[in-house]
């Protein structure tokens, strides 16, 4: 079971955490919602829960709850620029289909 991120993603997260002034790392997760069943969660983490799994990558902590990990195993988090727009992208090998915009998906 593993999760990774690109250097660009790590750099951006580090900058965001610095700007925010606090936080343990970044939480990746999934929840049931959206037009294709599941949607990603991407949040700052202030408190790590007991059952959370912690991965460290490029010096940044990725925190995932065990249920989400099943759907995210093997995912690489990337930070990309598309024209003026920039943001995070989940490269998730478990995805079988997603809605047009990719904000929700199924496995």
């Amino acid at each position: 079971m593993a999760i990774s991120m690109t250097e660009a993603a790590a750099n951006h997260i580090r900058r965001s955490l610095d700007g925010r002034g606090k936080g343990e790392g970044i939480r990746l997760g999934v929840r049931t919602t959206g037009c294709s069943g599941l949607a990603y969660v991407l949040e700052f983490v202030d408190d790590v829960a007991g059952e959370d799994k912690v991965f460290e990558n490029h010096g940044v902590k990725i925190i995932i709850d065990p249920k989400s990990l099943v759907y995210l195993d093997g995912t690489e988090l990337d930070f990309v620029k598309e024209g003026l727009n920039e943001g995070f992208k989940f490269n998730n090998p478990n995805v079988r289909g997603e809605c047009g915009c990719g904000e929700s998906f199924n496995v």
Partner: protein
Amino acid sequence: MALLQIAEPGQTPQPHQRRLAVGIDLGTTNSLVAAVRSGRSEPLPDADGNVILPSAVRYLDAGIEVGLAARIAAPSDPLNTILSVKRLMGRGLADVKQLGEQLPYRFVGGESHMPFITTVQGAKSPVEVSADILKVLRQRAEETLGGELVGAVITVPAYFDDAQRQATKDAARLAGLNVLRLLNEPTAAAVAYGLDQNAEGVVAIFDLGGGTFDISILRLTAGVFEVLATGGDTALGGDDFDHAVAGWIIEQAGLSADLDPATQRLLLQTACAAKQALTDSDTVTVRHGAWQGELSRATFETMIEPMIARSLKACRRAVRDSGVELDEVGAVVMVGGSTRVPRVREAVGTLFGRAPLTSIDPDQVVAIGAAIQADTLAGNRREGGELLLLDVIPLSLGLETMGGLMEKVIPRNTTIPVARAQEFTTYKDGQSAMMIHVLQGERELISDCRSLARFELRGIPAMVAGAAKIRVTFQVDADGLLSVAARELGSGVESSIQVKPSYGLTDGEIARMLKDSFEHASTDKTARQLREHQVDAERLLEAVQGALDADGERLLSTDERDAIAFQMQELRDLLTGTDGPAIEQQTRRLSQVTDAFAARRLDSTVKAALAGRNLNEIEE
């Protein structure tokens, strides 16, 4: 797929529910747009990495230039290039004539009292010019954030009266922006410094921009933000420093004061550059044409001293209005590019007895604060984001009473939203109607106040003079916009008005502007279609050329090759022009003549793949 941003713990939005909102600082000299992304409020840069959009609009025979290109073109095309349009917002033609000689534009009166500027594209109102700036910022934000905006918080100087606020809202509407809130610039700056998260205290915001000066005194109590007092000057700013330096050049170089618009512009640019250089050095060499001279910081400081004195006087007055002592002010925030001038910082520091805060870029701080407010208003709550802003009315609101006197109903510096009522009566026996004339200002005579609106209350039952009781209610919403209602208490007849300031746009003017924007939409669309056809054509040409190079000799006869080459040349010729439909048609024709060739290539590839293999292998 949509790109994601980091949310606060537990705050990840539902898919397709991200509510994109921005803060816009629509400035006299420069404008910016900022947004909260991954928990941080930051200005959004354009494709070249520039955060600042100069508030300059140039009208060409075809098209509009906004920003740096327009500012650069200002000296060569002064009549069609509008700078510092914010100074004209909500002003009447008479006000503008007073501002007068400094402005090189040709003004004409419109259907309403609003001044229109004559350009090659016809008469443009300040509202339209501002909308053109806002459109560029909106487009930048939508491209950057990857979606449509639910709304924007737009900042205005605290001293803007109702007419100027309404004009700003009209401009936003014209630019297709939903205004979540108009926010006073100093209030936005305080939010940017996170002063709302801090302990209690009194804060002064000193904002000296390109064209306007604001001083605001804020009090923070338990996370609640109250503006105690505002003051300032709608016609004082860095532009005036430039004019002072330009005046010095004219005097030193012995130029005649009667200069043509292009030379005026050039002089102002030279002056502005000299001013900026003096922030870091003690002396600067100024050149204008063949003339050259040395300007020292000390000389510059002497020139601007009267303006600094004006700003300090306004500071003292605002502090007095707010009912606090100078030494109670716990922090002073500097906003606006002109606070980079060392003498300004020094003078403000001396007045308040403490070094002012300057850690956030003074040009960006307002937009950054507005974006935080926009994010909150759009429903993307920040952690502990109990941001409650109380603003005040900058000028008293009232109505005209007998004898041309102004009766104040809501005094200035009253916190908003607010509603106040006052009772009036008739002055003649049997009087059946009453004219309500709504005014804004501090003076006693109505001729010295600004007229905002007039309306009539009719149907008052016949009574002796003084028997009718007419209750007039003034209501100001959170944006500082006013509605007035009058009701005769005996009969219940009533009448009300949503104040449409005298200097706002008439419906006819708004209709014309909307029509204009539709007309532009169609030219914009044609241009886009042409570009799409060109791209399709180029892509096909490249593909056919590649196929010809690879298999042309082998699969095609000379006649066939010549036919394809002929159609390709036709398409290339069309591509030098701008006839979109013709390009599209020829692209389709080329595609047709190459269909057979494409089919033959496919066959040949399949044959090559199958050659030398038996049926069993293929079935696997």
